[in-house]
């Protein structure tokens, strides 16, 4: 993701990145925000799809 962002920005602006937002986007910020949520959604998704380790007594 960082590499793609870098390539896009550099190809559009020459060598220098245009502004601070794109600069941070192409460095660690996007990973700092997206990576934790990606992993958290992955964990909950796995928990959601597969049988939970937390059993319950079904009401009849």
């Amino acid at each position, binding site marked *: 993701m960082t590499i793609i962002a870098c390539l896009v920005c550099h190809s559009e602006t020459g060598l220098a990145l245009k502004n601070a937002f794109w600069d941070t986007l192409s460095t660690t910020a996007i990973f700092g925000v997206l990576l934790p949520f990606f992993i958290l959604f992955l964990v909950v998704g796995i928990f959601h799809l597969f049988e939970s380790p937390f059993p*319950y007594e079904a*009401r009849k």
Partner: protein
Amino acid sequence: MTVRSYRHPMLSAGLLLGIGMGGFIDGIVFHQILQLHNMLSAKYSPNTVINIELNMVWDGIFHLGTWLTTAAGISLIWREVTRRTEPVTTRRFLGSIIAGWGLFNLVEGSIDHHLLHVHHVVERYGESSWDFAFLLSGVIFLLLGAILMREQE
């Protein structure tokens, strides 16, 4: 690969709500009220207007993530309300929310505080025991949530 039966939608919903609300607590209490750190405060120290604005943008994107996670949890609850496939107890649902909060602290703390160093819990101390306390709170919440979730009716 066989996907096994869909058994615990309310616990998944609780986990998502816990992650989202845990993120909101981080953002509202640590970022805004106490101003201990911002999303990128270790990289862009908020001591100039430009850096404050930049951190504010990324704080907003972080809050967008917590909002989407909370919305996903609410949508799962609503789906379960209409289907009623799983018996729910307050204790187990509360447990899933607390476990979700613990998951948030553990994952966000590991990645942002220790792996990427985009910010630290108390920015003026850098990587400090507060960061490890944050991780420890994640482990404690996760264990507490798991204990509550395991409890039989």
